[in-house]
């Protein structure tokens, strides 16, 4: 190709000329650019003579990013969002459960009987796959349909960059990039999305820190577990009037703990495996924009709620089948599930959890959304309860929160179990989708393994500590 020698020539000339024009060239270029931009802008824009007396944007910014009020306002807003979600989701959840579980499920069973299905086929299809899906829809749809639009409205209003601004100082003290606040915020919706969002971070070191710690942002697959356990065990410990608020605060507490863990683990990583200085960046605080409410409702429903729900549904169907199978296939007189639960009970006890919860976490690696249904089903099985639910391996919607509490109490649950389940729900391995995304983004087996195992080990350590402490202090 004739271009090759010419290319070498050009590069040589450029090299020589570069030495001639000297180091000031870059500044020169940028300056010329800025001067032009300033001149053109100046000619085109007419400003009002008097500056506006009161700038609302700036007034709001002073408040929400102030050193004193920034954090309290953040916690207040989050609590408000969860309170709305918890209070608002109750009634539609019950209605969906009545429809899908009390009406459609028996109808399907009748249909199976009418068509002459063998017991195992109708078991796998209706008691396994269908019930798991119905459970996920009735538990997840209402909170998501409230949480996502409200959160999206906050986002559209322009609050998220202020959160990043508030957190930036803490992140840089932890040796991490301030933009990690943005990917963390995305993680509150979905960790896989949060991991993809770390692309805004340029430094590979800081990006890895952001990827590994993203799991500590509670994702929507875990909100329902936290909300339910907190409603049943923590909300019910206080007067009814306060129950909603206290449950919301407990959920916020776990979320805030997740943020603190993000800082702690980032700090640890930036001083051990991923040493280095935090890089500087500029973050523009965009103007506040009145959100377009109807459009936001539509997009957050289509983009987030339906997509996330669909994922949960597709994950729950095979999981439901697995649950039904392991509870109905017997080895030596006991079902596989019972073998697993008994085998893990010892470890579970040490961690202040139980075998049922650990088995549920293994079954739910593809989707954390199905933890609660799995736990309930396995508890009924392990505790040998009769007259509740629908028998072996059938996931069911308990009539009310009191019934769920009764079942769990019969399974030997205490407040410690509930608290540790909430902790473990925050601190354990990411779901399989997130693990896959981490691998796609890092292309490294090593860092994928670190991102998977580090939170799991940390979760074991934390629950072991709280369990041992609670027992030593005689609380349990």
């Amino acid at each position, binding site marked *: *190709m004739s*271009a*090759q020698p*010419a*290319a070498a*020539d*050009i*590069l040589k*000339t*450029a090299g020589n*000329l*570069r030495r*001639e*024009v000297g180091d000031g*060239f*870059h500044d*020169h*270029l940028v300056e*010329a*650019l*800025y001067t*032009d*931009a300033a001149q*053109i*802008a*100046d*000619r*085109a*824009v*007419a*400003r*009002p003579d008097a500056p506006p007396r009161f700038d609302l944007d700036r007034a709001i910014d002073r408040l929400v990013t102030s050193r004193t009020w920034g954090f309290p306002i953040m916690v207040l807003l989050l609590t408000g969002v969860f309170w709305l979600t918890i209070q608002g989701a109750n009634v539609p959840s019950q209605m969906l459960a009545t429809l899908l579980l009390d009406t459609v499920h028996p109808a399907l069973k009748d249909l199976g009987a009418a068509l002459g299905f063998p017991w195992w086929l109708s078991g796998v299809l209706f008691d396994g796959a269908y019930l798991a899906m119905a459970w996920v829809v009735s538990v997840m749809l209402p909170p998501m349909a409230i949480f996502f639009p409200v959160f*999206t409205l906050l*986002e*559209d209003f*322009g609050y*998220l*960059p202020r959160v*990043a601004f508030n957190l930036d100082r803490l992140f840089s003290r932890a040796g991490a990039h301030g933009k990690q606040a*943005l990917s963390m915020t995305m993680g509150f919706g979905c960790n896989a999305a949060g*991991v*993809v969002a770390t*692309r*805004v971070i*340029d430094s590979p070191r800081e990006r890895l820190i952001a990827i590994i710690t993203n799991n500590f942002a509670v994702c929507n697959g875990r909100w329902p577990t936290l909300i339910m356990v907190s409603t049943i065990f923590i909300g019910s410990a206080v007067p009814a009037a306060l129950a909603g608020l206290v449950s919301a605060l407990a959920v916020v507490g776990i979320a805030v703990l997740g943020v603190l863990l993000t800082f702690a683990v980032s700090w640890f990583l930036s001083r051990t495996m991923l040493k280095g200085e935090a890089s500087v960046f500029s*973050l*523009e605080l*965009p*103007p506040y*924009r009145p959100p*377009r409410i109807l459009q936001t409702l*539509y*997009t*957050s429903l*289509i*983009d*987030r709620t339906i997509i996330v729900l669909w994922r949960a549904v597709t994950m729950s169907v095979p999981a439901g089948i697995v649950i039904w199978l392991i509870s109905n296939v017997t080895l030596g007189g006991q079902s596989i599930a019972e073998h697993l639960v008994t085998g893990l009970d010892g470890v579970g006890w040490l961690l202040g959890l139980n075998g049922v919860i650990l088995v549920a976490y293994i079954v739910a690696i593809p989707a954390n959304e199905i933890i609660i249904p799995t736990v309930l089903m396995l508890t009924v099985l392990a505790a040998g309860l009769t007259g509740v639910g629908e028998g072996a391996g059938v996931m069911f919607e308990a009539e009310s929160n009191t019934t769920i509490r009764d079942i769990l109490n019969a399974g030997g649950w205490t407040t410690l179990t509930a608290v540790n389940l909430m902790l473990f729900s925050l601190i354990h391995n990411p779901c399989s*989708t997130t693990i896959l*995304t981490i691998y*796609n983004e890092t292309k490294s087996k090593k860092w994928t393994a670190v991102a998977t195992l580090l939170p799991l080990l940390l979760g074991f350590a934390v629950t072991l500590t709280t369990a041992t402490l609670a027992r030593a202090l005689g609380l349990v």
Partner: protein
Amino acid sequence: MTVTDSLPHQSACATCPMNRHLERLGVNMEDWDYVVALAGNPNTGKSTVFNALTGLRQHTGNWPGKTVARAEGGFIYGDKRYKLVDLPGTYSLLAASVDEEIARDFILFGQPDVTVVVVDATRLERNLNLALQVLEITDKAVICLNLMDEAKRHGLTIDDRRLARDLGVPVISTVARRGEGIRELIAMVHDVATGEVKPRPHRIPATQDDALNRAVERLTGQIQAAFPGLPNARWVALRLLDGDAQIERAIRDGSLGDLSRGDEPQSVVDRLMVAEVHA
């Protein structure tokens, strides 16, 4: 066929570009006649403009850096199919970071038929820094002066005709959130793509420093000789004098040569593919 083409007696309304057939294609764009790139500073409403043009409802967020990779969509206008590529928002194209690199490589090597620079009317000066850099690389650009409602709210009046004259490219005022000005923007994109409108963009003027001007001229001449047909030899010369390693690489591996012959350099297409979203 458009309405315009099929009518024998054309009334004023039938020939008005506003009445050309417009169809939003979402992500469905198999073959296209023109590629349109969407560039701009972060948080200027680029994704909102993207959605307004394609009919897609890609989530838009009021925070910078939301679009971390390219998003693509399409629309039909007149009888032409347009593929629209939403580039990551950047403050400059000096390729200091991955998103700047993606944006610049696409405008330089992807050779879009039109580049729409979305500009925040309330922060015109800073936004023009990027716009001027885009105009250094490509002639075929349209400025979308967005967020005009906010500018009004802040009491700013912007003379868009003056701006268009100074920049040498068409300027369309929009409020993308409400769809205002989008028809006009599409019509202008069409005119620039088809060559009905030929912008002659403003270029950063020569400096007072004669030695420097001579250096730029000499290098530009050499580049033009080696790569005839390259639309932005002067910009390449400036980048080389600034010690831009990527441009040096593009010269060495021949992708700049491909560009001057009108081929899309494969290596760059591959590199751009890396940026596609997986999740």
